[in-house]
Each structure stands twice: as C-alpha cells, then as structure tokens.
C-alpha cells in the first residue's frame, strides 16, 4: 500500500514539474485553507485530525467524529465560508465538505487571480466553489482515503466547472501521525477561453501527539512540506499550546508559518496566528493571517468533536 502511494506521488510530481508555470491555477478556493485550526497552523494539516482534514487528506477522516463551519474575510473584498463533517461509519470513514468563496476579481491580465490578491478586490463579482465527498478505511494498519470534488469558478458571471480527485494515506509511527496526500488531480477549467489547471499538490507531514508540558499545559506540533503544481516547494509548520485548567475547558494559542509566494506584488505574510476555546465537545476557533499592507485575513469557526 505504501509502495503504491509512493508511486502515485512520483507520477504526480513528474506531471506537476512538467507543467509548472505554464498556466494559471484555479479554482481559487482550492488554493485556500479549508479550516480555522489549520489556518492557524500555517496549513500544515496533512496529518491533522478533525473535520477540516477533508480539505487536506482524506485518509484522516476516521480519527474523530467531527463537524465544523467557518467564515473567513480577506480585507473587505472577499469572504470564504466552509463546512465539513467527517467520522467513522462502520468500517469506513466518510466525510463531506464545502468551500465557497465570494470575491471581486480585477480580471486584468488573467481571469484567474492568486490568493494574495483577494483583498485587493476588483469590478467583477466572482465566486469559487468546491464540494467534496470522501471516504477512507484502514488497510493493514494504514489509513487510506479518497475524495471526489466538484469544482467551479465563476468570474464576472462566466463560469466553468470540473471534477477533481484527492488521494491520501496516513498511519501512526509511535504516537506521531504521518500523512501523505495528493490533491486536486484532474483536468482543469477555463474561463472565456483562458485555460487554468487545477492546483495539484503533493503534501507530506506529521502531527504530533499531545505532549504534556506541565500538569495544565500540552503542546501539539504539526509540520508539512508540499510541492505545488507551479513547482514551488512550500514548507509549513505550526504549534498549539493547550491550557486546560479544568477537565473539558481548554484554551489554545496557536502559531504557524508557511512559505508564501515571493515577489514585489505579494502581500501575504508567512506567519499565521490563532486561538481556540473548547468546552467539552464544542470549540470556537479563530485564525489571523497578517498582510503587508491592507487585507489581513480573519477567520472564525465552530467545531463539534
């Protein structure tokens, strides 16, 4: 199983390398983080757990029965809403998720913009949608999963859609979770004759168990590295500090970082921050991604797990 996953990863890597930098990447929603907790951890969530893992690695669906909803603002020009629910179902783990991005496109040199340009806005009302269903199971101690996605981009009333596929594997090594996923395998879309490729991505990462620091504090560390279709290598990582003064009451501080696109026009900050408050199974999450100039991103979410 691990061997076939390796083979698949190599195939996709080769494909992404050959096609690197040859066309814009779309839909835009596929290039954004799907969850608030993951956002706070610099999107190093390929080995994560909880509902939002459906946006990162379908192999991890069965770890926790969980649902989440979140809302993210990019400056004042764009809003993303996400919903996901995952959990074990007999011997299978299943999940469903939706990402919906409402934004204003400048549509100057291309109909497709980058995430870093979201806060800038533009004259064209646009939206980006991803609807996902996923399933996974354990085979010989290794969790495997696959997700099918319907993706759609609508720029100024002109839209196109298509299908995409995610594949993932994960397992525990000691108490640490190791995950590998290949996301957004598919043909691509086009707007007014301008083709865009899916942002195919190969990611590998780890997610630590809860590390007891003192009798009230725990630490969780997440790390990942991704190869994007445009050829960029994106390392990412994050850490969460849990403070639990009383059983069931948990306060979390979160910091993350990831490599962002460089260049004079890029406004993304590599640092992300976040926090959560959990009361038994209910969690309130917040994430913040600063920006150089206007357009910092704020995100709030609710999780039940």
């Amino acid at each position, binding site marked *: 199983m691990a061997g076939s996953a390796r083979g698949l990863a190599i195939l996709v890597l080769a494909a992404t390398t050959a096609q690197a930098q040859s066309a814009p990447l779309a839909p835009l929603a596929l290039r954004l983080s799907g969850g608030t907790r993951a956002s706070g951890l610099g999107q190093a969530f390929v080995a994560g757990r909880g509902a939002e893992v459906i946006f990162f690695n379908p192999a991890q669906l069965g770890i926790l029965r969980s649902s989440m909803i979140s809302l993210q603002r990019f400056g004042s020009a764009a809003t993303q809403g996400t919903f996901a629910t995952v959990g074990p179902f007999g011997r299978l783990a299943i999940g469903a998720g939706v990402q919906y991005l409402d934004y204003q496109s400048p549509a100057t040199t291309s109909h497709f913009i980058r995430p870093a340009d979201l806060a800038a806005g533009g004259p064209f009302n646009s939206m980006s949608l991803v609807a996902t269903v996923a399933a996974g199971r354990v085979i010989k*101690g290794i969790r495997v999963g696959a997700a099918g996605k319907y993706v759609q981009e609508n720029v100024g009333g002109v839209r196109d859609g298509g299908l995409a596929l995610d594949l993932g594997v994960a397992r525990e090594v000691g108490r640490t979770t190791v995950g590998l996923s290949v996301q957004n395998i598919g043909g691509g879309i086009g707007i007014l004759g301008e083709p865009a490729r899916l942002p195919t991505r190969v990611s590998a990462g780890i997610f630590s168990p809860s590390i*007891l620091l003192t*009798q*009230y504090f*725990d630490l969780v560390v997440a790390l990942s590295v991704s190869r994007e279709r445009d050829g960029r290598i994106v390392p990412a990582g994050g850490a969460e500090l849990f403070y*639990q*003064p*009383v*059983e*069931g*009451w948990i306060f979390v501080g979160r910091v993350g970082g990831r490599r962002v696109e460089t260049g004079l026009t890029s406004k993304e900050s590599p640092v992300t921050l976040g926090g959560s408050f959990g009361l038994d199974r209910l969690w309130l999450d917040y994430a913040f991604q600063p920006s150089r100039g206007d357009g910092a991103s704020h995100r709030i979410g609710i999780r039940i797990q």
Partner: protein
Amino acid sequence: MTRRLLPSSVALALSVSGCTQPLRLARDDSPTVLAHQTLTAPNPSARGSFAVRTLYYGSGKDKQRAEFREGVALRTKSVDGSKFATGPTPALTKDRKKYWGFGFDSLPVNGRVWYPDGPGPFPLVLVVHGNHNMKDFSDPGYGYLGELLASRGYILVSVDENFLNGNIRGENDARGWMLLQHVKAWKQFNDSAGPFRGKVDLNNIGLMGHSRGGEAVAVAGAFNRLSHYPDDATIAFDFNYGIKALVAIAPIDGQYEPASRPTPLSNVNYLVIHGSHDGDVSAFSGLRQYQRIRFTDGGRWFKSAVWMYRANHGQWNTVWGNKDGGPASARFLDLRGLVPAEDQRQMARVYISAFLDATLKGRTEYLPIFRDHRVVGPWLPRTMYVTRFMESGFHSLASFGEDVEVASGTAPGVTIVAESLATWKEGVVPLRWTNANAGHSAVWLGWNNRIAGPDTMKTGKPASYSVSLSDSLRSAWGVGSGSAVAFSLSTTTATPGPLSAHKDTTKKDSTKAAGPKKPAPKPPPTPKKVPTAADSLPIELSIEVVDSKGTSARLPVGRYGPVRRPIEVTVLKRKGRDKSNFANLWEMIPQSYVIPLADFVAAAPALDPSRLATIRWVFDGTRAGTVVLTDVGLTNIDPVFLAPAPR
C-alpha cells in the same frame, strides 16, 4: 490596552473558577473520635531495634534497571507467564518486548529487599504495586514500609511487576501467580547458601498489594491452595506456602475472576484499606473481597476493612503520589482535599505494622485496632475513619441475602420483627460506582417517630427492629457472658415522613355520616425541607438485648463506634462531575460494632446472657432517619480483640 484586557481576564477567571466546584469537606469529628488512646502497647509505626540492610535479586539481565542487572546479589530464574498474561495486540506486545527485552514467556523474578540485620528467622512479607505507567517504575515506592518493617524484624520485598503494567488487562492472575513465584524463590534462598540461609520464617508469610496488586494478593492467596490453574488445568499448582496475612491497599476487584467467578478466599487474615478521595479506584471495591472471605477451619482469623477520609489512591506509594489519573490529572481531580502524603503513609505504617505483628508474630495486643480504630486515636492522622471487622468466632443471625423473606434470618430459628418503621426492606449494598455493589446484602430501616399533625412535637413510641433467636441456636453457639453482639451499620441520607396518627375508633367517623359530603379540608402546605444543624449531627440509636425471662438492657450504639451521617466525597474538580459520574456522592460503608454482652449485664445485672432471646435496635435518639444494617450476629470473640472502647 490594559483597560480592554482587564475585563476579559476577569471574565475568563470567573468562568474558569465558576466551573470548578468549591472545596467541600465534611465536618471532621476526629478531635472527638480520635481523642483517646485506650490501647496500651508500643506504637507499631515506631522504628524497631534492627539495623536495616537492603539488596536486590533478579534475573541479572534487566535492560532498563541497573539494580536488577549488575546490582543483583541473588540471581533468580525467569518464569513463563504466557498462560497468564498476553499483550493487547501483536504490535503492542512487540513494542513491550522491545522495551523490556523479554516477553511474557520469560518474566523475571525481581525484588528489592529490606531486611533486618540479625539471625532470624524473620517473617517474609511481599508487597506488590499495581498498574501504572510501566516506564515509571512503581516498586521503589514502598521504601517507607521496607525501612519500618525491616527494622521491626520482617524481610520486606517490593516485587517488580512493572512489566505487567501499561496497556494490558485481565492480567491479575499473572500478578498473583508471580507473587507465588517470588515465595518459591525465597524458599530456595532460605534453603541455599547465601545471606538468607535459614533466616526466612516460611510459616509466616504476608502478601501486600496496592491497586491491581491488591487484588493480586487475593488471587495469590486463592492459588496458594489450589491444585491447578482454574482457567487452564493443564497447569498444575503446588504452592501451599504458609501465607497467613493478606493486605490490600486500595484494591480493585474482579479484574480477574478464576473460572469466571469472584475470587474465593478462606482461613487467612485480611486487611483492606481504602481512601475516600481515590481518583483511580473511586469506590471501596475491596469490600467485595472482604465480604467473600470465610473462616471455616476453626482457627483464629480475622478480617478488617478501613476507610480513610481524604486519602487518595497513590499516596501509599511514594512514586505514584497524589495524581491518581496520571501527570495531568490535576485537570480533572480535585487534589485540594487530600491529606498530606505523609499522613496517609503514617496511617499505613500504623495499620500494616500492627496487622503483621498481630498475624505473623502473634502480637495480640494490636488486635483491637482492627475492631475499633478509636482505641488508637492519637496514633492515627487526624481525619475520619470507618472500620469493618469480623473474626472467626462470628455466627451470623442475619446477613439479609439468603432469601427474600424479611421476617426470617440466616440461621435457622431466627425471627425478625419490626415496629413503627417507615422503611423496612432488604437489598444489595451499593458501591459509589454506578451499577456496582459491595457483594452483600443488608436491611434498610427508616423511621420517623413524629406523629403527623399540627403538633410538631408529638412523637410516638420509638421505632425498633428486633432479631430473636431460638433456644437451640443459642445453645449450639454457646452464647454466654463472654459473647458479644456484632453488627455493621451505615446511615443514609433518606428521612421518612412522620407516622400517620392512629384513628380513634371510639368516636363516630363523621366522614361516613349521611348527607352531602363536605369537601375535604385543604391540607396545609408542606414546608420546604431546609437542612438544619440537626441533619449534620450523628444519628443516635440504642441497642437492647432481652433474655428469655424478659429482662432487658439498653446501651447507646455510639459508645461502640461513631454513627456518622453519610460523608459526601467530591473527587472530581469540575462542578457537577461527581454527581454525573457516580451513583452516590457518598460511599455506604457500614461501621462494625462489637458489643460484649458483659456490658449489658453491667447495665442490668439481672440480665442472663446465656438465655439471650432478642437483640433490638431502638431508634430512640434521633427523631427520623434511615440506617442500613448488615452482618448481624453473635460472636464468642477472643477477649484480646476487646480493648476498652473510649467513652
């Protein structure tokens, strides 16, 4: 910024503190109950006269601990325990083997020994820990007992069973069997050249265990007399060692059941201690084993169970400490109510040392401690205790579990009568855990001596509960002036309503008069029950005996042991969690009372104890309440158990 942060911080602090329940401790009656020392003997927790030496024995190949590798003074053969314990999964079994360097088929017989510097022979006492993080080795945690007991002339071995800890279950047969393998090794040490040649008193062996180890000592006690392993009779046993004493510290019960039945035990002395604030074994489950111990061979045996208020699970082991649920357990356990660790260990020193002296060395002067903790009040840390006790002279009149007829007793010819009781029912004594019981039955007796009506001071004849025995039974048991009435009793929180007034049948009933019925007068509103100071006062009741001539004598039960209201215990930190996690906030532990018939004779010299006919509990001291009564009987108790009770 500070102005904005301050309200948020205050709100946060308030919300966190709001979900933590305030520390709730019961009113401590120990200044009164433990005020007097009536036992005249040296304090058994005092260090003895022997210099203490230490050594290690074991496989000599231990991968993790130098003391059981190059540190061993005596080498032992490893034993095959694979029929008794297995890993949870093949992968975890492999991980365990990798860590320890051996599997279940090659378990080392490792022990750390404290022993007296003297010629001997000395009684052998093994102590074994229970389940804990297997990498945080538990066996060094009984050094305080090792130092004390070795100085007092015992060989104390803390047995290494860390390799049975961690993520396995149902392995308590292995823990018990390993103890017997250690005794086997000690027989060899005693018979072979070496530091213990001829120094081990193998006729006087004591086994002590903590938590799962507490159950393991009972398993070992049972296996010791069996010819075969009950769950696989292809394994023959040939132990039959001189095990005279078992001590269970906060034990679990039922983790292993031989042939799927609760572990039976007979003809051995048994002491079990448990803490009210146990955050691991949160109910006094050792009472189940206590109840199952039978004395059948005519020898002098006894059993005692002691509950210590504000003691936890782990402080009896210096490695385990106060966090019963692991290093992060301060998040869910309320540790504020615990007694200091040293106090908890001092209690263990007193009880364990006295118990071993009494059972392995014949020091009978300590026996009264196990009947009534009040006789050594000043030796004990100041907190509340409940003691259960039974010795082999006990004959059961009523144990309330043999049938569903409430008017008959356990022994033939016993009859039971109740008068003016509001509650009279038999049932199984529950444990604090939901859907768990203490493995024996009792009778619930509720009373309210007030007569219903506007006059709140009007009371009727006090309620009573009588157990009568036949002449033949009295003769068969040899009841006489040396006998005593024995029973165990607990109070409950239930308070029945007042008695109905008897109808005056001499007057015409106006409600049956001809003509239209008058509407019934509106009953006065029931006042809301408000806890009063009286609710926290001890319950007072009397016990009366009557001989066949009708001569009676009555004594207050409280003279023979505290009759407390139920003691509520909150173990968990989060508000409301105890209520949702446990069936009861308080544990029903009946206190035992042994009342010599001679005391009744002193109160009424005309009473003839050899013609005892009836024992009666008279609820004459407290207007209303409910008690649970069990193990009612008569005993021809050895007078050595009867140190004078504090008055």
